[in-house]
C-alpha cells in the first residue's frame, strides 16, 4: 500500500465538527423541498480503491477495488465470511464502529474521500443510508415518527407541514403509504415484517441520501414481501445508487444490474473480490471458475 493505504483509525475529536466539501453538503438543506434530491438529481458514484478491512489483527477483506455505479443496483454475493457485509459497512463508515476495526485504502463518493480527515462520519452515514437484514423500526415510535426520526436528527427544526410532506413522500417512495396512511400514529412495530422493512426503507430515504446500502434486506421476509422489496429496489435506482448484499442468488440475478462476487481462499484468509460485471454476464458466462462454481451452487 502506498500513501493511500495509510491506516484510517477512528475519527479524531476534530472530525465530528468537520463537514464534507460543499459539493456534498449542499444536499443537506433544512427544507426537504429545497433539496435537489426530489427533482431528478444525478445519483453519485461510490468508488473503492485497494480497500483492506481489519477487525483488530484479523484481516477480513483484502485489496478490493470496485465502483458502485449511479442509478444501478450492485449486488454483492459470496459465501458466508467472504467479507461482503464488512465491505458494505465500510461504504458508509459503519465498519469502524466495531472496536479495533480499521480501514485501509480509499473510498470516495463522486471523487470525494469519505475517509478524509475533515469528514464527519455521521454526515457520511446520512448521505449513504443503510437498510439492515432484520427490519428494525424504533419499536415504541409511531409509523410517522419512525420515518421522521432521521429528519429530526439531521435537519434540526423542521416545520410540521414540511415534515408531513417528507413522511408522505418517503412512505409513497417505499410503496407503503396506502397501507399505513390511516394508522400513522400507531406503533411501527405493529406492521408485518415486509411492511416494517419498507418502513425502514422509507426512514432511510426520508433524509434523502445519495446512496442506499442494503444488507440482506429480504432474508427475514416471505416471498411476496421479498418481491415487493425487489420491485421497490428497481424503482429506487432511478434516484439512488444502490448496493445490496444478498445470499439469495436468484435475488441478485433478478434485482441487480451489476454483480460482484466475493470469495475467500480458505477460512481465516481475507475475502477478496473475485469478479465484478454485468449481472447478465455473471449468471450466463462468468469469467472465473470460482464464480461459475458459486453461482451454479457447486460450492457448499
Amino acid at each position, binding site marked *: 500500500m502506498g500513501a493511500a493505504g495509510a491506516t484510517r483509525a477512528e475519527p479524531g475529536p476534530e472530525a465530528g465538527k468537520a463537514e464534507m466539501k460543499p459539493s456534498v453538503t449542499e444536499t443537506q438543506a433544512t427544507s426537504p423541498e429545497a433539496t435537489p434530491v426530489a427533482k431528478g438529481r444525478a445519483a453519485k458514484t461510490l468508488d473503492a480503491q485497494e480497500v483492506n478491512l481489519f477487525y483488530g489483527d484479523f484481516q477480513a477483506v483484502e485489496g478490493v477495488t470496485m465502483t458502485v455505479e449511479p442509478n444501478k443496483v450492485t449486488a454483492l454475493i459470496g459465501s458466508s465470511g467472504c467479507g461482503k457485509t464488512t465491505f458494505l459497512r465500510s461504504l458508509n463508515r459503519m465498519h469502524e464502529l466495531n472496536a479495533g476495526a480499521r480501514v485501509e485504502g480509499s473510498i470516495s463518493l463522486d471523487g470525494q474521500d469519505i475517509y478524509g480527515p475533515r469528514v464527519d462520519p455521521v454526515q457520511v452515514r446520512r448521505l449513504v443510508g443503510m437498510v439492515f437484514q432484520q427490519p428494525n423500526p424504533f419499536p415504541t415510535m409511531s409509523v410517522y415518527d419512525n420515518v421522521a426520526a432521521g429528519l429530526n436528527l439531521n435537519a434540526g427544526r423542521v416545520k410540521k407541514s414540511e415534515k408531513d410532506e417528507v413522511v408522505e413522500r418517503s412512505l409513497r417512495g417505499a410503496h407503503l403509504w396506502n397501507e399505513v396512511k390511516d394508522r400513522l400514529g400507531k406503533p411501527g412495530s405493529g406492521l408485518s415484517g415486509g411492511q416494517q422493512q419498507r418502513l425502514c426503507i422509507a426512514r432511510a430515504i426520508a433524509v434523502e441520501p445519495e446512496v442506499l446500502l442494503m444488507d440482506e434486506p429480504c432474508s427475514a421476509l416471505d416471498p411476496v414481501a421479498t418481491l415487493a422489496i425487489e420491485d421497490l429496489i428497481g424503482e429506487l435506482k432511478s434516484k439512488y445508487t444502490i448496493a445490496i448484499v444478498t445470499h439469495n*442468488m436468484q435475488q441478485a440475478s433478478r434485482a441487480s444490474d451489476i454483480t460482484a462476487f466475493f470469495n475467500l481462499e480458505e477460512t481465516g484468509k481475507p475475502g477478496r473480490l473475485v469478479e465484478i460485471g454485468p449481472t447478465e454476464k455473471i449468471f450466463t458466462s*462468468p469469467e472465473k471458475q470460482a*464464480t*461459475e462454481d458459486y453461482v451454479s451452487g*457447486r460450492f457448499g
Partner: protein
Amino acid sequence: MPGTVRVEYQEELDRLEASALGGLDLVSAALSRTLEAVEHQDVELAQVVVADDDRIDGRYLEVHQALITLLATQSPVATDLRLISALLHVLKNIERMGDQCVNVCKLIPLTGNQPPSDQEMVKLILTMGAQAKTLISQAKRSFEGRDVELARDLVRQDDAVDNLNRECFRLALEIGDDADRREWAMTMLLGARAIERIGDNAVDIGEQVAFVVTGLFREFEDASHPMG
C-alpha cells in the same frame, strides 16, 4: 468443493444431455434405413422409417419437458444454463433431421416401380447421405467433447454435401425431355434437398457447441450474407 453438492441435479443434467444427443443415434439409424430404401426402392422399409419417426419425436418431447422442469426447479445459471439452452436447440435440430428422413421416405413410392432413370443421380444421393451421417456423428462427438474446432469443421464437411446437391441439380437439368424421367429427377431432387438440410442441421448443432463453450452465439456461416 465443486462437484460435492447438487449431485442429483448434476446427474439429471448429464442424463438429459446423453438422452438428447442419443437422439442423433436414432437419426443416424433412420438415415441409414432411408438410404437403403432409396437404393432398393424399398417402399416397406420407407414406411418403417416414417412410423419410427415417432421415437425421435418422443425423445424430443421427453427431454424437452425434463429440461423445462430443470429450468423451473433448479434455476440453472452460467454453463448449466448455456448447456440447457443449447440442448433445447439441438433437440429441435434432431427432430427436424428425423422429419427430413421422413420427407425422403415419403418420396420413394412416388418414384414408381421402374428401375431408376439415372443410376448416377442415385449414387450421388447415397454419397450425400453417407456424408450427412458423418456430419451427424461428428456433431455428436463435438458436443460431447465440447470441441469447438471439431464443431467448426462441420462447415467444411457440409460443403461436400452442398456440392453433391448442386451436382444432383446439374444431372436433373440434363436428364432429357422424357416426362417420366423428368418427374423422377424432380422427385429425387426433393430427396437430395432434404438430405442437404440434414447437413445444415448438423452445422447448427456445431454452433450450439461453440455457444456452450464460449458463451457467444455466432453462425459459422451466414447463408443470407455469404460474403460477410
